[in-house]
């Protein structure tokens, strides 16, 4: 029996984007019949590397060698021609069409009798074979939109198989799957392995890597920092490679906080994403919410504020000794909310700076019987904010579009300073902001808390969480896995818990 051994090598791959070196001289090799785990934090370069292999990006230098022959991948089509299938996180499918059509879309079998016609029975038969091979019992006649996310993913794998792909890349495939679906997926991936495919599996969950993969590759800041056999390495060592330092980041002084709860969320549930979240937010504290992508971090905030539907749960607001149960949408009215992507849902991008600053508090500036807006006092207070926060802008009437990211973000902060809500929710408050402004915004957050605001801080930058938070909740798989206090708020500890290490 001869097994067709295949070998894929990416050699000395370098790729830079404007201002960022995404990949520096990275080399990996993968063999057929093996599952290679590709790990690293967000922004480590995993996706960039795989996008090069998928033909979506082109590399600046380095080469890709398949079975001792160099291949050139200029488009996703090139990748497909070379037998490379990329299962993206956001699945590609055709909702109103059948499973069978989705699998064989580009290769619909011809009808033997009537020219131009396709054969419905043949496509279903073929689809059934592929699905059988994957050990799946999905009905090839069902419509794609009737399937669950996990099933859709299996259909996409089936499409890769049907088009004869030898290399299958999975990009964080379990991020939206239930535990059962996850097990089913693993079975399918192992099946592919036994079919002698080359499999590259991107994940930041170490348990998955340990359970599934044969070899591992760790990337950090665009560099290869470790590789080898999964069986030869301890989890702790891999975590160390991922984080890259054993040193603790020193905390910027933790102030005493009060125990006066302002907001309580009880047993918040939304599908598989949030499985019963309980949290209390106290006056004068910065509560950090930490977790990896897919842990439910963003979903928690979106659900609590009514931007996504809530299945069940209770939200209590405590004001002046009264307890009010409120709906998510009502909570949004009580909070200041600095959103994750300010250009999309934070700024009025073509409006002047002063209007952006006062827009959250217009009732304050409305005067007289007709409640007309007093623009003069609006501009006056905007100018004060610009001075206080040192927002760099030619004038208060400059269109906010022309400001730098950091100054735009400061303008958004001053919008909430103007209104002074008791609760502030900050989602990635320093994303896309330069180092100096980052420092200023950090100081501002600390100051706001000291002045009595209750702040919920979400950030994907662990340094930020560590240096600003008084208390950190670590989310994993839709539950709060750990509450870290004082000296336990350090990078190694938070990262280990988020990656799946039990306490």
């Amino acid at each position, binding site marked *: 029996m001869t097994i067709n051994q295949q070998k894929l090598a990416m050699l000395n791959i370098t790729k830079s984007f404007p201002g960022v070196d995404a990949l520096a001289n990275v080399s990996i090799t993968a063999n057929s019949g093996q599952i290679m785990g590709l790990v690293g934090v967000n922004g480590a370069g995993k996706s960039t590397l795989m996008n090069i292999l998928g033909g979506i990006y082109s590399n600046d230098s380095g080469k890709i060698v398949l079975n001792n022959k160099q291949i050139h991948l200029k488009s*996703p*089509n090139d990748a*497909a021609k070379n037998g490379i299938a990329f299962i993206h996180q956001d699945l*590609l*499918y*055709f*909702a*109103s*069409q059948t499973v069978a*059509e989705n699998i064989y*879309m*580009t290769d*619909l079998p011809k*009808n033997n009798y*009537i020219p*131009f*016609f*396709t054969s*419905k029975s043949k496509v279903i038969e073929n689809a059934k074979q592929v699905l059988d091979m994957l050990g799946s019992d999905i009905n090839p006649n069902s419509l794609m*939109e009737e399937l669950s996310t996990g099933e859709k993913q299996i259909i996409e794998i089936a*499409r890769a198989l049907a088009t004869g792909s030898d290399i299958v890349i999975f990009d964080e495939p379990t991020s939206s799957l239930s535990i059962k679906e996850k097990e089913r997926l693993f079975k399918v991936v192992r099946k592919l392995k036994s079919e002698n495919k080359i499999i590259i599996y991107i994940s930041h969950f170490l348990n998955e890597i340990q359970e599934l993969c044969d070899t591992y590759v760790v990337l950090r800041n665009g560099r290869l920092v470790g590789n080898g056999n999964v069986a030869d390495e301890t989890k702790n060592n891999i975590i160390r490679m991922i984080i890259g330092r054993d040193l603790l980041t020193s905390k910027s002084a933790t102030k005493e906080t009060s125990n006066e709860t302002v907001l309580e969320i009880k047993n918040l549930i939304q599908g598989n994403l949030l499985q019963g979240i309980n949290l209390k937010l106290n006056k004068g504290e910065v509560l950090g919410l930490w977790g990896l992508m897919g842990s439910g971090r963003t979903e928690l905030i979106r659900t609590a504020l009514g931007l996504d539907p809530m299945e069940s749960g209770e939200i209590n607001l405590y004001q002046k000794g009264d307890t009010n149960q409120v709906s998510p949408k009502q909570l949004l009215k009580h909070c200041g909310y600095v959103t994750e992507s300010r250009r999309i849902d934070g700024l009025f991008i073509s409006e002047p700076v002063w209007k952006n600053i006062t827009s959250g508090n217009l009732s304050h500036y409305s005067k007289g019987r007709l409640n007309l807006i007093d623009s003069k006092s609006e501009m006056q207070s905007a100018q004060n904010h610009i001075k206080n926060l040192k927002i760099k802008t030619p004038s208060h009437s400059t269109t906010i579009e022309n400001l730098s990211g950091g100054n735009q973000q400061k303008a958004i902060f001053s919008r909430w300073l103007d209104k002074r809500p008791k609760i502030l929710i900050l989602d990635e408050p320093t994303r896309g902001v330069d180092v100096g402004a980052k420092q200023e915004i950090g100081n501002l957050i600390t100051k706001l808390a000291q002045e009595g605001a209750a702040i919920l801080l979400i950030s994907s930058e662990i340094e930020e969480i560590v240096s600003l938070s008084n208390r950190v909740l670590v989310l994993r798989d839709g539950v709060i896995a750990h509450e870290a206090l004082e000296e336990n708020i350090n990078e190694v500890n938070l990262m280990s818990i988020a990656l799946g290490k039990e306490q």
Partner: protein
Amino acid sequence: MQFADFNLSQLRNFIFSYGFYILLFFLVVLFGFISNDFLTVSNWTQISIASCFLLAASAGLTLVLVTGNIDLSIGSIAYIAATVVYLTADYHPLISVLSAILVGASFGLFNGFLVAYLKMNSLLTTLGLMIAYRGLALVITGGSMHYIGKPLASFGSVKFFSNSLPLIFLVSFLLMALLQVILKKTRFGTYCYAVGNNEIAATRIGIPVRRVKALAFVISGVCAAISGLLLSMYLGEITTFTGRGMEFQAVAAVVIGGTSLFGGRGNVLPGTMAGVLLLIIINNGLGTRGVSPYIYPFVAGALIFIAIYLDSIKNRYMIKR
């Protein structure tokens, strides 16, 4: 039937899928009761004649909508095709027919080129071309009425089965059947749905998206031309009213028939046919009762509103899933 198993979402799906067929049936019964003339053979012959022009044009439009685009130029293409019939009146009827269809195909190809290859928005592109094409035809006809050749006009009044089934309706029906088969049985048809469902995915997995879109517009142009041809054959003349406002009635009929404005869903038979019949039967039924003809636009407008609202709900519901 077990009522315990019959839950709300099933009911909703049922209404989304079959609501307008039920309404159509209900209307036929209603008009049958309140009007003695409605359920007569001669009236249904009348209905079939009144509907066949819209049927032909809507059939092609359905394909364009399935790919997620829209074609508002069909009424004007119908007028241009009729103009071609007038220009070729001195030749053999077959030459008139073929040249009208060829002209429809070329105008459709131009639409398709702009939308698919130059990536222009189909709504505005075809809205502009609707005006331009009609203007072109007006230059040719001088804005006046013209008779078409006798031989071709004589086909317009041919009826089978003791004068009850008009040839022009039969042509429209066969055209619809052909398009339904193309949609459901050919690779091109499957690609139409795929492009309408998810254009990005279609591009990524290697479907020739631009060619599929362009071909849908060509077919729409051909169908519009056939519609204009049938109308000129039936009337024996072309007027400036030929095809005017047909695009909006056709869009309404197609959407009422369950084809989504968002693309990816719908069919010609029975969907679009039912949509056309619904519009025509309301007009006809009100007419046989002697109701003021001015009420018709209001009723039809309300119906279109409901259909588009349902389409939007349906689409939102699908996305959520």
